[in-house]
């Protein structure tokens, strides 16, 4: 599946590059504001070719701007000999017909069809994928393979929270949890799950291929994931669903449970077994978490530095949570990459957590420290309500402050945080 995706991306890039000479001095339009069109838009940008607009049949999208380009309905397209439209997959023939009916010449319509593997290639790939399934089946024998394909920290936390209930509800006798991430494994171990194995991403893809083609019911495998991610994303847009949180959606759609009856809390190491950093001062230490890998909308470093300066004037010791080399330590702070099993007791001791909304917020939700969580700017009001820890019912809401980030209000947000810190 990963291979298929890259094959598709490279086909779009190649087609755009092959046509660069005719596109350079023309009015270039893309059909449909979608992920595949985005690839074409980026390739055009790399080649310094300006996109005049994006055509879309969705009335709600028309009039808005997508990747810096206006979205227009098909009837607003000004057809001339210099107008070219690129279609990347998704009911190509209907779109082409629609453009032809608007008077466009067929030669001015560039179509990129999804890379088609031959039937023999698909069968051969399936046999290879089946061999992976067969190997794992032999290894785990009667154990049901419960596969966690999403490597997000928050998803892993919620999986651990409900996995025991899921096992009981589905009458599963023996099982193994399979993930492709060591971090997910560590989070699941906080819940006492001992049979967790890490497999490669390639093997995970192959297992998914077998399940997609054969069906879970015929195999001793279950994929714990949302049925169709876009369905889940669309459902949260419906007005009537405003009370549904990420936790409820996960519990219902992934785990098939209706209440918190079988929910568990993770167990952390006792504080006396942890070698505490000597700089930490009880109740006067702040952990900053300025990075989130799923919601990659960063708040500028200067803002964090200003916050650190204020905290220092109030004699706080400040740490920055960094989990990889790409996440730099905020100036004036001490870098920290505390283990998951130590996070909550250390934070209880520190006293404060200030961070952007990420999966880490779920992990530390049970801490008794004061928490200030910033929801990134791109989150709509609905999305913020959906991911709100308060709405999810995680942790003590009296010690939790949730703030919606807005670039133009960053000074005010800083002042609000100052007021919250004694």
């Amino acid at each position, binding site marked *: 599946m990963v291979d298929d995706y890259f094959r598709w991306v490279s086909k779009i890039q190649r087609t755009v590059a092959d046509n660069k000479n005719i596109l350079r001095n023309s009015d270039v339009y893309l059909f449909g504001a979608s992920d595949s069109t985005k690839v074409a838009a980026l390739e055009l940008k790399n080649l310094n070719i300006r996109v005049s607009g994006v055509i879309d*049949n*969705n009335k709600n999208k028309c009039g808005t701007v997508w990747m810096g380009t206006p979205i227009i309905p*098909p009837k607003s397209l000004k057809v001339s000999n210099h107008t070219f439209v690129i279609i990347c*997959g998704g*009911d*190509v*023939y*209907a779109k082409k*017909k*629609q453009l032809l*009916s608007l008077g466009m010449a067929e030669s001015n319509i560039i179509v990129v069809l*999804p890379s088609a593997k031959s*039937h023999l290639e*698909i*069968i051969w790939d*399936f*046999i290879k994928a*089946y061999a992976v399934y067969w190997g794992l089946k032999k290894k785990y024998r009667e154990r049901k393979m419960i596969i966690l394909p999403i490597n997000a920290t928050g998803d892993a936390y919620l999986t651990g929270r409900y996995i025991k209930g899921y096992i009981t509800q589905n009458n599963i006798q023996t099982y193994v949890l399979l993930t492709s991430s060591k971090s997910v494994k560590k989070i699941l171990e906080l819940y006492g799950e001992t049979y967790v194995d890490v497999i490669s991403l390639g093997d995970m893809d192959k297992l998914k291929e077998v399940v*997609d*083609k*054969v069906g*879970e019911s*015929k*195999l001793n495998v279950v994929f714990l994931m949302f*049925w*169709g991610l*876009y*369905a889940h994303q*669309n*459902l949260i*847009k*419906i007005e*009537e*669903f405003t009370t*549904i949180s990420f936790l*409820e*959606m996960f519990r*219902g*759609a992934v785990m*098939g449970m*209706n209440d918190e009856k079988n929910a568990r809390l993770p167990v952390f190491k006792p504080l006396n077994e942890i070698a505490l950093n000597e700089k930490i001062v009880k109740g006067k230490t702040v952990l900053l978490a300025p990075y989130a890998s799923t919601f990659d909308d960063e708040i500028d470093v200067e803002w964090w530095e200003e916050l650190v300066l204020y905290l220092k004037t109030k004699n706080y010791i400040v740490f920055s949570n960094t989990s990889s080399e790409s996440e730099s330590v905020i100036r004036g702070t001490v870098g920290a990459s505390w283990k998951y099993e130590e996070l909550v007791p250390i934070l209880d001791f520190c006293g404060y957590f200030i961070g952007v909304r990420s999966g880490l917020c779920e992990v530390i939700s049970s801490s008794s420290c004061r928490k200030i969580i910033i929801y990134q700017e791109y989150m709509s009001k609905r999305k913020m309500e959906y991911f709100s820890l308060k709405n999810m019912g995680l942790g003590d809401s009296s010690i939790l402050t949730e703030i919606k980030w807005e670039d133009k209000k960053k000074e005010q947000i800083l002042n609000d945080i100052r007021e919250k810190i004694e």
Partner: protein
Amino acid sequence: MRLLINILWNVFWGALLWRIYQSFNHIPRHSSIYIFPEQDLVLNDVGINCLQRNYAKGALSKPVVLCADLNSISFPKEKRSKEFIIVKVSKRDLKKIIIYANFFAKMEFHTVSLDKPDGNRSFLANQFAGVPSTDIIEYCIFNKI
């Protein structure tokens, strides 16, 4: 190993059956094919109206509807042939065609169903009680196109 052979055998039959239905019903190549495997009147009704609306505004080419039970579609019979190519397929054949389309990830095939992997009916019913099922169906299956 028996399972592997069984799947490949079903895929072969599905491909063969699809070719037969395609040529007997003069289904043009590259048509969008909508499979209605369920006998759910509400689901099928919303599904078919959604297809009709999108065909009318030019967002779809004439859709092909594969259905085992034509009575589960309440769209007026006299208008059907104008808006769609409706093909009655036996339940057994439909199952094999779905296996074939699924196996080769045929993009032109769409299944109008709320069951896994496209949806989970019991979850929707429990969590979203009171929400019009038409909204759920349009959002889940048709991505509100």
